[in-house]
């Protein structure tokens, strides 16, 4: 199968002006990936699915990654797609899409119209990471309940302190229980 760099060359030739970068994986698995810009992502995905050489008809895995801001790197949310070909029996080709930031520009185009298997998995990324997928037919929370706020798989997620619980006799747990009870206006337990 073609390497990520070769696929990138063909994509740049087929989609002039589209943003496609190779993200090198330094580990022993050496599964490099292609970072797509938002403008042509849907068209590129359709090209990869229908291209007679690649025939990436099977989108196996869709997931999110949270990258909070660090020195020299602005924060973003990333969506990773693992593509394989059932017709040609090769893969993976890995696609990535990144949001502009982690606060209010958190949209990347949905690939559910290209591969149906993204339907539930993009809903899960929406639910747990807060990435919005314009073009998704049914974007709702899937694992958490509808009234839930926040996105648990983000790195800066803080557990809510709103449940009933019985503190166990560990120092940190008791300290948390005291904070919780003070905030809830309850006296310390017996």
């Amino acid at each position: 199968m073609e390497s990520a760099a070769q696929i990138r060359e063909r994509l740049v030739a087929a989609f002039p002006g589209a943003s496609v970068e190779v993200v090198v994986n330094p580990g022993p698995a050496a599964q490099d990936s292609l970072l797509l810009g938002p403008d042509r992502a849907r068209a590129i995905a359709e090209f990869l699915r229908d291209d007679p050489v690649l025939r990436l008809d099977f989108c196996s895995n869709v997931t999110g990654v949270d990258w909070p801001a660090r020195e020299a790197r602005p924060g973003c949310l990333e969506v990773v797609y693992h593509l394989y070909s059932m017709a040609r029996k090769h893969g993976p080709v890995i696609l990535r899409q990144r949001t502009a930031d982690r606060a209010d520009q958190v949209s990347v185009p949905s690939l559910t119209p290209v591969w149906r298997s993204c339907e539930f998995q993009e809903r899960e990324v929406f639910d747990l990471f807060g990435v919005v997928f314009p073009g998704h037919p049914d974007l709702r929370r899937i694992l958490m309940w509808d009234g839930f706020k926040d996105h648990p798989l983000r790195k800066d997620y803080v557990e809510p302190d709103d449940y009933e619980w019985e503190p166990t006799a560990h120092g940190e747990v008791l300290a948390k229980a005291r904070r919780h009870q003070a905030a809830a206006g309850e006296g310390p337990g017996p």
Partner: protein
Amino acid sequence: MSLSPSPLFSAPGPQVRAVSDEFHGDLLEVSMGPHHPSTHGVFRMMATLDGETVVKLKPVFGYLHRNHEKIGEGTSYLGSMPYTDRLDYLCSMTNNWAYALAVESLSGQAVPERAQYLRVILAELTRLLNHTCLAGFLLQDCGASGTPLMYAFREREKILDLFESLSGSRMMCNYQRFGGCRTDAPPGWLEAAAALVGGYGAFLDEYEALLTGNEILMARTQGVGRLPAALAISAGVTGPMLRAAGVDYDLRKVDGYGFYPRFEFRVPLGAHGDTYDRYMVRVLEMRESIGILQQALRGIPAGPIMDPKARLRGFRAKPGEAYGRIEGPKGEIGFFLISEGGPNPYRYRVRPPSFINLTILEDLCLGHSIADTVVILGSIDIVLGEVDR
């Protein structure tokens, strides 16, 4: 006559589809589950019915959600291994293997030959027990109360005895490690496994005599829940469900992970993609598994079961990422790991086959009666520990 949904349900009304010009009544929304015996756990289907016919069906997930992935990011690589047992709790051995494979490809570790053979043996035993249980549950869902399920559980118990004598636990085996396996097979274990495998064909014959030609089973499953191959591929359906739709895609052949290229076996395919094919493909897969097990039990060499250079405690992987996947009994189970060089994975993702196989549940059920949804769901083979994670 009005086609609007019943005022009893204040939820936004379903999109109404006229089924016939004359004989139609109000649509009825039925919430099947989360506490319903046919859902195999806490799973809910919001079904909209016209008479008994399903016109809309939306699955509702999350009753067993505990954010497995967040917990995996908060613990060491080794610490997640016992937790993978709890994903698909019928198939802990294959979950362990998929996770071990992902970590091995993240770190570039090798696995000794004997451990590879043990992994194949355990994975195929897991496939036997999973498919046997599935057939039992499917018949239970058809209303054959007791007998088929108890026959299945009798055989499953024999396999669980083998797992227990090897790993110390029947279901939560926590047996595989990155770089090999945790313990070697005790004396006599391989002989006991060979005896069980030798008798399994006879059990399948008996089971099939009871079921395969059974008129009621055929009436309930043939032509029910037909899955076209193109939809199966697009929806990412994997495992026996995909092969029942006629798509030749088995990761044991395609990826050739472990030592599977050393074994001879065939990949059974269905011709219709209906529920009966899904049952039949699993039965045929069990027969192939018996063949693989006999070859593996004959060929297993002596030797170490762990890579001597492997470190389990204090394991750190070089920065990078890896996606490892295997052919689990329910489909492709994969783990996606990103390492930043620390003791914990930066990102730990499970690709749950039964969750993704549920994508097409509504497509399969539309137009069938509500009783058929129970059979269709049973043939998809889900475990909620894995669906909700």
